[in-house]
């Protein structure tokens, strides 16, 4: 069976045989870096075209259809345009912070990628606190957004950044609590362990109603945390023109744009890992033959399939719902989602202690 695990071990063994360990490690760094950047570029292109096609499909129109077959190269053309554009820095802006902000947002998005398991035995960093690492690092991106909003010296940007700050800090709590409710079941923060614990069924189906509740809360909260509609208050086109990145142009804008899509990918990957079994094929208890058939589908296809399904869900939200108002947004979190997820966590703990899950 085709597996990426053999590939990685092959490369690692060869490097370790040929070079001294220090040099081999260096080569591994380079390979991983190149792969991560390549994945980023590919994801950016794919997700942008996907969003536009999904939007077009929902809005009864065709979407981009001129560049390449069925418009598939549209986002490549857009990238070329954005690279060619001048990256303006406004006069009154704090130049250092203004130019730093997009890179912070981008770097955070890149760092979060490290512990995610893309396929069986195929991850950059098998760290034992994987989930904790992800939630810790992803909260740094709010600094980049606040920095962008403040340093632009623009009132719209400032308002957008303040909204974004309030929003991301509050919704992180719900994300954390719903992630925690799965951790309670697995007893491990290691992403690999979490995936392996779903060998005989995904947590979404195994752990009764609390898991479904926390999945729904997770999806709502990550939509808010990535500043996507209906929670895109920090951009809020009709209110704040473009929110925190009003003053950005060219590639600096593109970095924010790309980081948004990478963040969506990452939160969906986390969601897929926690609730839908990551790269684990669809298994049902002890139906041996069924499970065996499912195993024939390569694990990376399972991972990307689940992730893109969740991404599609989030895109679907964006093109269906109107935007919330800022006070309603915070009410939703503090008055509804947070108490519900707290109670849900207790219920989940009960399920875990009593062993009620399958």
């Amino acid at each position: 069976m085709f597996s990426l695990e053999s590939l990685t071990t092959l490369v690692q063994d060869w490097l370790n045989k040929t070079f001294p360990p220090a040099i081999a490690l260096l080569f591994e760094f380079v390979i991983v870096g190149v792969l991560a950047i390549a994945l980023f570029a590919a994801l950016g292109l794919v997700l942008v075209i996907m969003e536009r096609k999904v939007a077009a499909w929902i809005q009864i129109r065709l979407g981009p259809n001129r560049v390449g077959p069925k418009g598939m190269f549209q986002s490549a053309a857009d990238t070329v345009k954005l690279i060619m554009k001048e990256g303006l820095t406004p006069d009154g802006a704090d130049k250092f912070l203004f130019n730093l902000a997009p890179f912070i947002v981008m770097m955070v998005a890149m760092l979060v990628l490290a512990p995610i398991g893309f396929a069986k035995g195929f991850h950059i960093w098998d760290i034992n606190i994987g989930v904790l690492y992800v939630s810790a690092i992803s909260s740094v991106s709010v600094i980049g957004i606040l920095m962008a909003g403040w340093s632009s010296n623009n009132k719209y940007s400032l308002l957008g950044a303040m909204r974004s700050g309030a929003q991301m800090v509050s919704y992180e709590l719900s994300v954390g609590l719903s992630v925690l409710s799965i951790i309670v079941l697995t007893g491990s923060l290691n992403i690999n362990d979490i995936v392996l614990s779903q060998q005989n069924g995904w947590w979404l189906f195994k752990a009764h109603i609390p898991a479904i509740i926390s999945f729904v809360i997770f999806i709502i909260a990550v939509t808010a945390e990535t500043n996507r509609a209906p929670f895109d208050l920090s951009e809020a086109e009709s209110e704040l023109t473009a929110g925190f990145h009003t003053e950005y142009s060219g590639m600096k804008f593109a970095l924010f744009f790309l980081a948004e899509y990478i963040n969506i990918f990452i939160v969906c990957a986390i969601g897929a890992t926690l609730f839908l079994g990551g790269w684990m094929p669809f298994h049902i208890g002890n139906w041996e033959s069924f499970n065996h058939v499912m195993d024939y589908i390569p694990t990376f296809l399972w991972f990307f399939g689940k992730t893109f399904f969740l991404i599609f869900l989030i895109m679907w939200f964006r093109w269906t719902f109107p935007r919330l108002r800022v006070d309603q947004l915070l009410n939703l979190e503090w008055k509804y989602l947070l108490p519900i997820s707290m109670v849900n966590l207790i219920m989940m703990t009960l399920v875990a202690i009593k062993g009620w899950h399958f």
Partner: protein
Amino acid sequence: MVEEIGKTAEGDLIINVGPQHPATHGVLHLVITLNGETIKKVEPHLGYIHRSIEKMCESLTYRQFIYCTSRMDYLSAHINNHACALTVEKGLGIEIPERAQVIRVLMDELTRIASHELWWGAMAMDLGAFTPFFHAFRERESINDIMEETCGARLTMNYMVPGGVMMDLHPNFQNRVKTFLKLYKQKIHEYDELVTGNIIFQNRMKGVGYLSKEAAISYGVTGPAARGSGVSCDIRKLYPYEIYNQLDFQEILETEGDSFARYMVRLREMNESIKIIEQLIDNIPEGDFQAKTKAVLKLPKGEFYQRVETARGELGVYIVSEGGTTPYRIKFRSPGFSNLSCLDHITRGGKIGDLIASMGTLDLVIPDIDR
């Protein structure tokens, strides 16, 4: 904080919304004073698209000046032309053939639906939902096709002339309209499913931008915006022109006075317009489409006033004639201008999002305000 609202103080955030801004739908300039997200004051600045249409009309003949008015409220071009034509006819004392009257009413109501469709899409877009815009345009397109066929233009139609309409209906007109009616009835439920019933939408609209009945009257608000506050002000009912008094339709009134009431008035008004079209489409009388008029029109000395109900409210046309071929003075009482005046009143104390939502339900067309 509540007592501070309405007063500005040192340290308030003052933001220019517009003249180029996605939510003002044109070149409206609002200077808003904010305390955090709370709006303390909204000050509209006008004049960015002032083309002095009223002054231009003074140097144009009674046939020519009507074409300028299509560019005022470009979403109800027919109704603007209609108002002007009616005023000139009043001055001349012409009797309009019945066929022309029916055609005019049909066109008015089609325009009203098209205008409300665009408003519905644009307002949903103001609230951050992009998809309704395309759904609204799907139906609006077929109205535009009807207009294109009969009037030769899709947006700034110049179809109504003193004495009737410019040319006869296209032979395809009735079929097209019937196809549109069928399409509309198939699709209208999507409007409620996609937007009206949405919990986020209702939370954004209900209790927001409250305009009391008294305030609506004192600000001179007309049209659906006033009818959402329970003010009966439908000119088609109160001062019927053409054949409106023979038609069976309702004046839509809601009493809540909030943004949602104004929204519902427009949605229900579209159904009333459909009802009017259905009554007329099979009963277009035969005959002339234009009364015989002189080549050069001269209004007798005096003052003439006529009001009609556009998609946005009451449009009044006031002509002062010295007896020549051109008007001495023309004044348009445009609905948008009066409706805009209540914006500060209804948005004070709300959030920025409320301002956008309330502005959306007032349905402002900026060239109508500036003229």
